[in-house]
């Protein structure tokens, strides 16, 4: 088992003929992801890597039964692409595009809710269920099948930590990069709940960072609702206030959203917080062996 993507995922790539779209479609296909269609207006009838290209998501869905979409279009057009997928009946949309205006995401949110579409991202590396399906730009070789759930706001920090987990024999059920934007789709609590309900996941690693209070909410959710152990890491302890640290959402504003507050919230909820990435597998092992409560 896993969450969100698996062998039944039938993927349509929006922006398949762009540089990134083309490159990562190849990578996903090579991993074994069932990429059934691509969308690029004006290029219907062409094929790319043997994958049929359509003018619209609706056409792609009708012809191939695609149920998941990944978006590589430029940021200015990302909201439109998300809505197109949603209106075409796609139930899970992964938006890789970086730099999407916040108001675009705010406008998209209620429509996705009405249509029952789940969104991951934007500005995210996507997700992977090792051995089954890669939907994103994550480097496949570091992941390993196993029973740890993984959620992160960051890209390369995810790779760093997942690599450490795999080297320490902690394979993963599903790893989800939720992205670095302030207004995004599925977030910590949604995914913690999915992992709690996934019979194969035995523990969860959560990578947070400065900005907002999603980690504090996650801590509260873990304390109240979760039976499975969670280990966390928070990036940005040395980040100065008022500065955006690369990610649009990684900013300490008016003194709120600091790493110290988030770490305190996790500690209070009984979630051990690693001091550095290499401590994560150590804490995870201790937690699973019942050495720490």
């Amino acid at each position: 088992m896993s969450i969100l993507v698996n062998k039944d995922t039938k993927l349509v790539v929006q922006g398949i003929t762009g540089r990134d779209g083309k490159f990562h479609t190849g990578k996903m296909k090579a991993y074994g992801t069932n990429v059934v269609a691509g969308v690029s207006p004006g290029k219907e009838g062409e094929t790319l890597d043997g994958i049929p290209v359509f003018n619209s998501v609706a056409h792609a869905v009708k012809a191939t039964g695609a149920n998941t979409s990944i978006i590589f279009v430029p940021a200015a057009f990302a909201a439109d692409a998300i809505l197109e997928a949603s209106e075409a009946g796609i139930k899970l949309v992964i938006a890789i595009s970086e730099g999407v205006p916040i108001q675009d995401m705010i406008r998209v949110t209620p429509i996705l809710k009405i249509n029952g579409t789940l969104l991951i991202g934007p500005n995210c590396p996507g997700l992977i269920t090792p051995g089954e399906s890669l939907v994103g730009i994550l480097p496949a070789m570091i992941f390993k099948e196993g029973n740890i759930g993984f959620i992160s706001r960051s890209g390369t920090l995810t790779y760093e930590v997942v690599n450490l987990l795999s080297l320490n024999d902690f394979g993963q059920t599903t790893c989800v990069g939720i992205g670095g934007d302030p207004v995004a789709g599925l977030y910590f609590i949604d995914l913690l709940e999915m992992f709690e309900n996934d019979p194969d996941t035995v523990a969860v690693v959560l990578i947070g960072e400065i900005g907002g209070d999603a980690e504090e909410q996650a801590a509260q959710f873990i304390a109240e609702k979760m039976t499975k152990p969670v280990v966390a890491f928070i990036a940005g302890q040395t980040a100065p206030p008022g500065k955006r640290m690369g990610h649009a959402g990684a900013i300490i504003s008016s003194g709120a959203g600091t790493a110290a507050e988030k770490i305190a919230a996790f500690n209070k909820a009984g979630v051990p917080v690693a001091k550095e990435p290499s401590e994560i597998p150590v804490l995870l092992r201790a937690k699973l062996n019942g050495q720490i409560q």
Partner: protein
Amino acid sequence: MKIHEYQARQIFRDYGIPVPNGVLCYTVYEVEKAAQEMNRMVVVKAQVLAGGRGKAGGVKLARSAEEARNAAKQILGMDIKGLTVEKVLVTDAVDIDKEFYVGLINDRNSKSVTLMVSAEGGVEIEEVAKNNPEKIIKFSINPLTGLLDYQARNVALELFGNIKLAQKAASIFTKLYKLYIETDSTLAEINPLVLTTGNEILAIDGKMNFDDNALFRQPKILAMREPDEEELQEIAANEKGLAYIKLDGNIGCMVNGAGLAMATMDMIKLYGGSPANFLDIGGSSNPQKVIDAMNILLSDKNVKAVMINIFGGITRCDDVAKGLIKALEIIMTDVPIVVRLSGTNAEEGLELLKQTGLPTVSSMSEAAKMAIELSKR
């Protein structure tokens, strides 16, 4: 992106929100002249991109042109939170009966624009939120309908308790929402919104921030940008596809990815060092980017050692190594550099770097320890 009060007031005015008259001045002479022409009690206000101007002595009431001149003498050139005051706004002083707070923000949790109002105006809203959260009224706006008239009126009625005043204030709220959406704002604050003794409602001070991701479609807002030296550096780095923020320490870092870059800074601190910067070179391993990044890093004279931390995913470590070799051919430096390469093609990358004689390691913590050690030599 932030703008000055005088710029926010101009936007308010463009959207029909009443603001007192004001003149922007750069010299003491201009201030005196403006006060003379206004011929009434005025307020001289420092224009810097920082909060707490009043507390710092950057806002002064003047009863005459002479007092205005004296105020300008004190304020122009003064330092507020590290920023030098280069211009002041001279505005009509108004007789205030009551002060209120009105603000719009993007709320991450409700994923909507939230209207916040409070009868505790004129003080920082963060203080109110901390000490008297019950004194803030919050209203989440449905993005599909926008802020409707009756909603604005009901919130205003709760605040003013008088329908006549509430109607006046509601019209300000809806105008503020309109400009917030149309300018891709991330914060639009009127603080204070005042009720004058003559029963007028006026926006006395304004603060606005904008979404950097939306500046591509906001040419008018972009034209208002007045970056300070530090921000100029950040913007220049941005144009080269890098995210750079200068810090106070002495260990320069170059990292791929924002989260990993933050974790790298944290690790340097954890092992007793102090990071000189945040620098994310992003996903591409274009050699030019590595050269640009090295140039920026080494332009900071505090840097005593450099830690390069690359986890290759889509980025290939051998590409980064090639970029680095090229960079080091062009840039002459005796600052010690530690390179950590891991992930995609790390072995090939490390092999390539052998010719440079740079110390290479495979874990982040080793790299941090070594960089700290080298910075002490």
